[in-house]
């Protein structure tokens, strides 16, 4: 593309609005306007310049702030819809069963719930279109930033101290007037501006005072942070970067930690503590009276093991790594992994103790204990009697097709089929025993009776390893630096120039917070006796000023 030459002799890239060097308006529009648009210093941006090919069109689409804001609003609205009813993962039903999920939404939320489910809003944040929206957001941030940052950088670097009068006159803050002694006014202004921490440059009867230019890079820094963050989120899709497993572990149990090869965990104890009135009745008594029990602590005491270096594959040759009490807010940390206390179940059956008796006399042949994790087949008792366990149903759920069935391997409702053998009945008698019921095919002479049970607690733990956390944290940090840089400082510029006939011209620009800029100009104006100026977008203040002077 051809360059455009300014009257001052400078060659500007195609698409420039204000001459990079002297600031003269280059386009018809800019020439006509009373206050020139200073965004991006009137530099040539790709999106404003090239508009033909498909790539140009895509580029222009994503670089538009209007489109950017629309995408932000779209993410906002969809996120809000997702909070209308609980999301899938907070619903206490089988996550893989569409029918159960649908039934849940229907039961609780009726017709609207059904629609919510059918439209996929029940899993909003994992839906492909939500992901596409986030992708568009990222694309938009990248393209919009690239479109602006380079031209802005170039023109801010290149700006000259002395600007053409037509540039000065088109600033929002502008004033001109005769001065008794323009040169001394300029010197004084320079002095005062320096005192106010401005960078002052002079050239041939002109001053450019500039402050906080670095704040202009704030948005680009914060957008970089956002992109790094989004990139980190993307990475968790790649295996190895991210482990998220859960495990249930019973008291006394030793288990391999899912997702963490070679590490084993043993649960020594699980406990719940409650706030007691004795301990803090003065302060908390009233609250405890009102709401009842309040939990103080969920805790699992564990021992962490690691398989020995030379340990055989699959062997349990273990070294103790450490003992630890996992509580909420204090996960167990090792080797990049975190193990969290997430859930619990109290009093699961561990073992049951039974005895064999002769029904008629009530005579006992002794007791035996069934380990419900690993029920043995044969229990030898006194006087040559024995009980064979020939069927075990951990979670008995009735009889199907003549066979007892178990709903799950968890001993919620254990049932057994025993064969009882005694010297009198060496062939044995069969008996089906479940909680609260005993079934016999024929009338038996002997019976197995329940004596007692042992229970234990189970801890629900979550295992995480997240290599992306540092990337996310870095993104967050860069974002914070960027927003602070762009928000807590403003880029301010003040131009003072001697005109052709010895009059003084004063103009100023800031990217935000004009009141604060005006405060500073007033200080300089008073000290150096500069001409009055006008803020072309604030008529109230100037009227008030006049009123004040009256």
């Amino acid at each position, binding site marked *: 593309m051809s360059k455009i030459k300014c009257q001052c002799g400078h060659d500007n890239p195609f698409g420039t609005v204000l001459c990079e060097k002297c600031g003269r308006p280059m386009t018809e529009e800019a020439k006509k306007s009373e206050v020139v648009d200073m965004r991006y210093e009137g530099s040539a941006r790709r999106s404003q310049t090239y508009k033909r090919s498909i790539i140009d069109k895509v580029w222009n689409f994503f670089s538009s702030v209007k489109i950017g804001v629309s995408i932000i609003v779209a993410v906002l609205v969809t996120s809000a819809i997702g909070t209308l009813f609980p999301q899938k993962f907070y619903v206490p039903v089988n996550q893989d069963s569409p029918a159960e999920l649908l039934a849940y939404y229907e039961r609780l939320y009726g017709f609207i719930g059904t629609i919510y489910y059918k439209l996929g809003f029940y899993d909003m944040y994992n839906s492909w279109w939500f992901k596409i929206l986030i992708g568009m957001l990222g694309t938009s941030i990248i393209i919009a930033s690239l479109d602006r940052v380079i031209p802005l950088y170039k023109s801010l670097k290149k700006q000259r101290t002395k600007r053409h009068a037509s540039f000065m006159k088109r600033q929002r803050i502008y004033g001109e007037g005769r001065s008794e002694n323009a040169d001394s006014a300029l010197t004084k202004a320079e002095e005062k501006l320096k005192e106010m921490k401005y960078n002052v440059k002079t050239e041939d009867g002109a001053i450019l005072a500039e402050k906080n230019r670095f704040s202009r890079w704030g948005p680009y820094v914060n957008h970089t942070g956002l992109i790094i963050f989004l990139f980190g989120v993307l990475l968790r899709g790649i295996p190895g970067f991210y482990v998220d497993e859960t495990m249930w572990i019973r008291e006394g149990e030793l288990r391999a930690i899912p997702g963490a090869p070679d590490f084993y965990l043993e649960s020594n104890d699980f406990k719940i503590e409650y706030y007691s009135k004795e301990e803090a009745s003065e302060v908390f008594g009233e609250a405890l009276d009102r709401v009842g029990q309040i*939990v103080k602590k969920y805790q699992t005491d564990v021992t962490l093991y690691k398989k020995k270096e030379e340990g055989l594959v699959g062997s349990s040759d273990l070294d103790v790594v450490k003992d630890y009490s996992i509580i909420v807010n204090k996960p167990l940390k090792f080797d990049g992994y975190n193990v969290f206390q997430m859930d619990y179940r109290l009093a699961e059956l561990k073992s049951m103790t039974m005895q064999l008796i002769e029904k008629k006399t009530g005579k006992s042949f002794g007791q035996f204990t069934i380990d419900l994790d690993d029920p043995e087949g044969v229990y030898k008792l006194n006087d040559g009697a024995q009980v064979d366990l020939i069927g075990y149903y951990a979670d008995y759920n009735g009889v199907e097709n003549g066979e007892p069935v178990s709903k799950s391997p968890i001993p919620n409702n254990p049932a057994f089929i025993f064969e009882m053998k005694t010297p009198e009945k060496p062939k044995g008698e069969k008996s089906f025993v479940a909680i609260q019921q005993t079934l016999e095919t024929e009338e038996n002479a002997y019976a197995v009776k329940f004596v007692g049970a042992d229970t234990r607690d189970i801890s629900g733990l979550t295992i995480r390893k997240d290599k992306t956390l540092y990337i996310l944290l870095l993104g967050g940090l860069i974002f914070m630096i960027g927003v602070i840089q762009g928000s*807590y400082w403003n880029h301010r510029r003040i131009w003072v120039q001697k005109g052709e006939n010895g009059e003084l011209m004063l103009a100023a620009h800031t990217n935000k917070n004009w*009141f604060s800029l005006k405060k500073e100009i007033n200080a300089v104006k008073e000290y150096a006796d500069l001409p009055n100026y006008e803020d072309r977008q604030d008529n*109230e*203040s100037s009227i008030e000023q006049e009123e004040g002077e009256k």
Partner: protein
Amino acid sequence: MSLASLSSNLLLVSFIAYLVATLFFGGAVKGAKSESSYKNNRWGKIGIVITIIGFITHLGYFITRWMASGHAPMSNMFEFTTAFGMMLVGAFILLFFLYRTPSLGLFALPIAIIIIGYASMFPTEITPLIPALQSHWLAVHVITTVVGEAILAISAVAGLIYLLKHIDMSKPSKQRFWLEAVIFTLVLVLGFVVSSTTFKLTGYEAHFTYIDKNQAPAKIEYNYPPLFGMNGYEALTPEAMTPWAEMPAVVNAKTLTSFVWSVATGIVLYLLLRLIFRKPIASIFQPFAKKANSQLMDEIGYRSVLIGFPVFTLGALIFAMIWAHEAWSRFWGWDPKEVWALITWLFYAAFLHLRLSKGWEGKKSAWLAVIGFIIIMFNLIAVNLIIAGLHSYA
């Protein structure tokens, strides 16, 4: 005097100080001819001194309560709403020293007063912390978030002043309607305070059993005459009123009952005010806003978003994620409260981008600031009461 009761007395002192300071700011605005002449007004100076005294006693309430309970007083509805009121005053003080305009105080303080009044309707006793909250991050995350939200809220105060000044209340228009609606909402909050206090003074109680969402039996106590009954309710106190209707399990009929009582009381209050003044309530406040400089209010509105946004990001997103990772094993879980923090953040990001384009100053920007405040209050209050999630421990 125990620390806990010292604490509540300090809160009362600050409440009164804010009331008195409001009067002084009113005097400052009334006596002045225009922005420049009221800037250094004596009334305004006294007003800000009293405000600062109120803020210090409020801070005293916060610290003594922290000492009494051993944890940051940010763990239930009463505590974090009062803290929000306190930070709102703090944010006002900050912006007052940047721009020295009494108009801002005249509107910011009454809003803080209403918020503290609202907070006091919830159980005020000190509760021990459940395991999920036992972390230093509770203080770090919640305090930073609330400070950020309070600074953002100042932009709504400035916006409200701008709108009161610029919307013509003498002719019907859409903007007039919505401005009156905003004022009406404030009257509804008063309605809640009035009705709740009334029933508290009479000591009303009604007990029920009901069937909850997961089809388990549960108990509940109402402090208002029960207009609506919980799912499958049975009265334990038969002498109390019988509910008009039974609600499905997903609706918390108790909350709905308090809500309807508050709205009804609010409507009565509003109608009374209309009868007395015979004009839209917003126009009563209008003369107080007329003296404010529009450009200045616009700049305060923008500036407070600029100051508040980074603080909010740090507290409500970054610290929140770090804590969520410690406590719940994931830094983000799409819990409703988290999502609404994200929505708030996206909203203000949109606001900042719109301010970069032409034509979004003035009224439009003021309306956006008011909407932002509504989103913040929604997250602070409604999400806890209506949408159940991990955060609804209030």
